[in-house]
């Protein structure tokens, strides 16, 4: 029972079918003269339309990249370089994905100033904080749509309005939200938006940056002039075709999946919180992705929790220090105001379209058992 869909998803069989011809018969380079390349060209155009449709953009506003990380890097560095004469101040939040956070850290080394907006107890930024942070030399606001750990959804339409009023470029990392909740780049006044294919049942190694017409971030990857001279490199046609198909499927099933996943999510949350002592939900109970559950349990550690659930056939993840290479607890969870010892016992379940209400029963039971087992050997647990 795979419940780590925020890390990555399996590829939908229909997506794979869409990709296959481009590995073998239709492998031609999209920029060649001869007929073999024509199908590639068509696939490229179709995929561009499908990605655009999912976020209400125009096809020519979609540029393909190697994934969400590259899209984030391109958007932020691209604007930082392009607007360096206008200003060097960027506003972001403390809970952005490392692709945004570490890009900002690098820009700090180059002399940029970054404001990292705090989050409230529910994981959401305070709009007043944003307003106060804006300066004359602010060139970019980069705020994620939904957080990858706690699933909280930021008020991007309000933010977009403020950005527009202040004539500041607005970038949204929508890697976790795209295809899961409604998203409209026009309505939300978004200038740049990052998407990744492997979070929505598409292949890995492909993503896109939506770039609003008229916005021109400096190029990150120079070369042969593909993607309208904005992102070079021979186009990954199978990947692009698969990504496009994944977007179309996500679009067609958005409402139904939301309804279904919300039910499963709420069942798991209710089941665990009502049956496990000292269990809490991280993040906002309402303003969260339909597929995200993030618990914390006192007196136990997340890596062992995840490993024991794995032994029971459930794949999940944790923000515990022990599970990271750096032995530091999740900065998203500590930003919520949690003490490191409480971050220790965190558990993220990120549901996928294949999960069912029966899965919820199993996972609730297994969590109860595993938490009890670990607590029985914990020196911090006295019952």
């Amino acid at each position, binding site marked *: 029972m795979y419940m780590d869909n925020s890390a990555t998803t399996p590829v939908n069989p229909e997506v794979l079918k869409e990709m296959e011809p481009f590995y073998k018969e239709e492998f031609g380079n999209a920029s060649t003269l001869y007929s073999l390349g024509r199908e590639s060209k068509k696939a490229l155009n179709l995929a561009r339309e499908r990605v655009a449709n999912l976020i209400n953009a125009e096809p020519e506003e979609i540029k393909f990249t190697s994934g969400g990380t590259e899209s984030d890097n391109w958007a932020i560095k691209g604007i930082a370089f392009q607007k360096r004469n206008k200003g060097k101040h960027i506003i972001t939040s403390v809970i952005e994905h490392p692709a945004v956070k570490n890009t900002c850290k690098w820009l700090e080394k180059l002399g940029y100033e970054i404001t990292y907006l705090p989050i409230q107890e529910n994981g959401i930024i305070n709009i007043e904080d944003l307003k106060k942070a804006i300066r004359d030399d602010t060139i970019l606001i980069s705020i994620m749509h939904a957080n990858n750990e706690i699933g909280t959804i930021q008020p991007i339409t309000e933010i977009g309005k403020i950005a527009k009023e202040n004539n500041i470029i607005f970038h949204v990392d929508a890697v976790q939200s795209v295809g899961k909740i409604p998203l409209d780049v026009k309505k939300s006044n978004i200038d740049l938006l990052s998407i990744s294919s492997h979070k929505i049942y598409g292949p890995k190694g492909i993503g896109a940056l939506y770039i609003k017409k008229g916005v021109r971030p400096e190029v990150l990857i120079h070369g042969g002039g593909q993607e309208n001279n904005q992102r070079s490199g021979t186009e990954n046609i199978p990947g692009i075709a698969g990504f496009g198909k994944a977007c179309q499927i996500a679009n067609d099933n958005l409402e139904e999946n939301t309804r279904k996943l919300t039910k499963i999510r709420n069942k798991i949350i209710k089941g665990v919180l009502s049956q496990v002592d000292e269990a809490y939900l991280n993040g906002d109970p309402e303003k969260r992705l339909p597929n995200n559950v993030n618990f914390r349990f006192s*007196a*136990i*550690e997340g*890596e*062992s929790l995840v*490993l*024991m659930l794995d*032994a029971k056939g459930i794949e999940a993840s944790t923000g*515990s*220090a*022990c*599970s990271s*290479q750096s*032995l530091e*607890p999740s900065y998203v969870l500590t930003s919520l105001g949690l003490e*490191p*010892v409480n971050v*220790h016992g965190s558990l993220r379940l990120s549901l996928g379209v294949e999960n069912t209400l029966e899965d919820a029963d199993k996972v609730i039971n297994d969590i109860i058992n595993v938490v009890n087992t670990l607590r*029985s*050997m*914990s*020196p*911090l647990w006295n019952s």
Partner: protein
Amino acid sequence: MYSEKVMDHFANPRNTGVIENPSGEGTVGNPTCGDLMTIYITVNDENVITDIKFKTFGCGAAIATSSMITEMAIGKTIDEALKISRNDVAEELDGLPPVKMHCSNLAADALTKAIENYQEKQANA
């Protein structure tokens, strides 16, 4: 990530629990990641560890090394047990990932502390 032996000791930890009125007990915290481990020992008149139990709040490696060290220490004299080094525990488990080596330190330190606690009690008796 972990060897089969680590996973075995993690999934089926030996000697978990508490000894009431132990001969010695030692608790150490892990400054690196904030974990906690307590080892309880019973020592007989020949200075042999006849019973040992642990409680651990920590990762898979912390639990497995706790379990492993209890198996390594039981039946040994306290002098022999004090010689169990941090690396011995890791080796006995067919190795640990580099980032997890500090967890085996935790186990060795907790055992040492429990033995020292026993020795202090003896000295004060």
